[in-house]
């Protein structure tokens, strides 16, 4: 038995199985995961690791374990999508920690969160003065959502009754020196238009461009491979570590 070869093959099986299964489960981001989801992720990863390196047992039972856990996660996702009550039962509910500017001590105790941790979470939200908080809610993913008192909330164009233009998502027109023809077509533009725009920016060919995007107002953003900066800011403290 060539253990190296067996581990390699089992590693490939575990890696792509995990990839396919996680794609099947959806694109939930790590920051959106609840504590339970987080533990599930660790458990599934652990089974995949065991599948790869534990040669004292067959790969098949581990793979079935992986399938069972993934199916269970999918089932819970499916059920919680259909039942709000079950979703709240399984994933918990947000907890109000500050209401109308007052700290809810009982709720803090209930979820075993110290005042220091609450202050830390507030600072992460850019709040250093408790006096400006109207509501603070601990979400089921462990993040704190904060609503500032109206007098401290940022002014928006709507507050000032200013008209605004529609702003949507930019479209990539050139990536890595290659023109994305499909996106040009979708924006009802052509290569001649693009060449004209590049010429006006003194760019000879798309090959010089790393990324070019077009926003909904028709503004073209272009980033060249050759950055035209005279001095670059160096954040490193150590010259020898690059």
């Amino acid at each position, binding site marked *: 038995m060539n253990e190296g070869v067996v581990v390699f093959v089992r590693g490939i099986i575990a890696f792509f*199985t995990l990839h*396919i299964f996680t794609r099947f489960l959806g694109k939930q981001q790590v920051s959106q995961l609840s504590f339970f989801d987080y533990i599930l992720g660790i458990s599934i990863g652990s089974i995949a690791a065991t599948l790869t390196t534990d040669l004292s047992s067959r790969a098949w039972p581990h793979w079935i374990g992986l399938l069972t856990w993934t199916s269970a996660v999918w089932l819970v996702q499916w059920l919680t999508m259909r039942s709000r009550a079950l979703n709240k039962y399984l994933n918990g509910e947000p907890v109000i920690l500050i209401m109308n500017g007052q700290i809810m001590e009982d709720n803090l105790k209930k979820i075993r969160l110290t005042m220091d941790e609450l202050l830390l979470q507030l600072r992460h939200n850019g709040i250093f003065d408790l006096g400006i908080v109207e509501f603070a809610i601990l979400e089921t993913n462990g993040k704190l959502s904060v609503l500032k008192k109206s007098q401290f909330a940022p002014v928006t164009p709507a507050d000032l009754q200013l008209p605004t233009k529609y702003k949507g998502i930019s479209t990539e027109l050139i990536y890595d020196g290659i023109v994305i023809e499909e996106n040009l077509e979708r924006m009802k533009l052509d290569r001649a238009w693009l060449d004209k725009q590049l010429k006006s920016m003194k760019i000879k060919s798309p090959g010089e461009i790393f990324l070019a995007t077009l926003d909904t107002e028709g503004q073209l953003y272009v980033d060249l491979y050759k950055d035209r900066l005279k001095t670059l800011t160096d954040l490193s403290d150590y010259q020898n570590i690059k």
Partner: protein
Amino acid sequence: MSNILHFLLSKVLPALVLLLFIVIMNSGTVFKETFGLNRRIPENFVLLQLSISNEEWSAADYYLKELKTEWKKLLPSLQFSVERDEINHFQQTLARMTGFIEAREKAGTLVELRALEETWRDLGR
């Protein structure tokens, strides 16, 4: 056209990959039991049993060598779908049996042969 391609890439390809993995993980058992490609090993068990019972030691020696050759041929295809401990156990039993045959000890050889047959039956299960 792009819908078909999308369906092939997002559904059919992952399904085929998973199917391939299932086949690899169970290949040993499938080869061992379904296709009968390794029937020479069980045949060798029978021939060994007969020669040991009749104390025909040179024949037992020959069939044991045959068994070892067949096992070596089979091992590369089995290794992805069976436990390392099962393989080790089979090989250790083979080694002990070799010793018993060299010592011309009937009882010990039969004990090891039975153990070998049992390990073979459980292999990949």
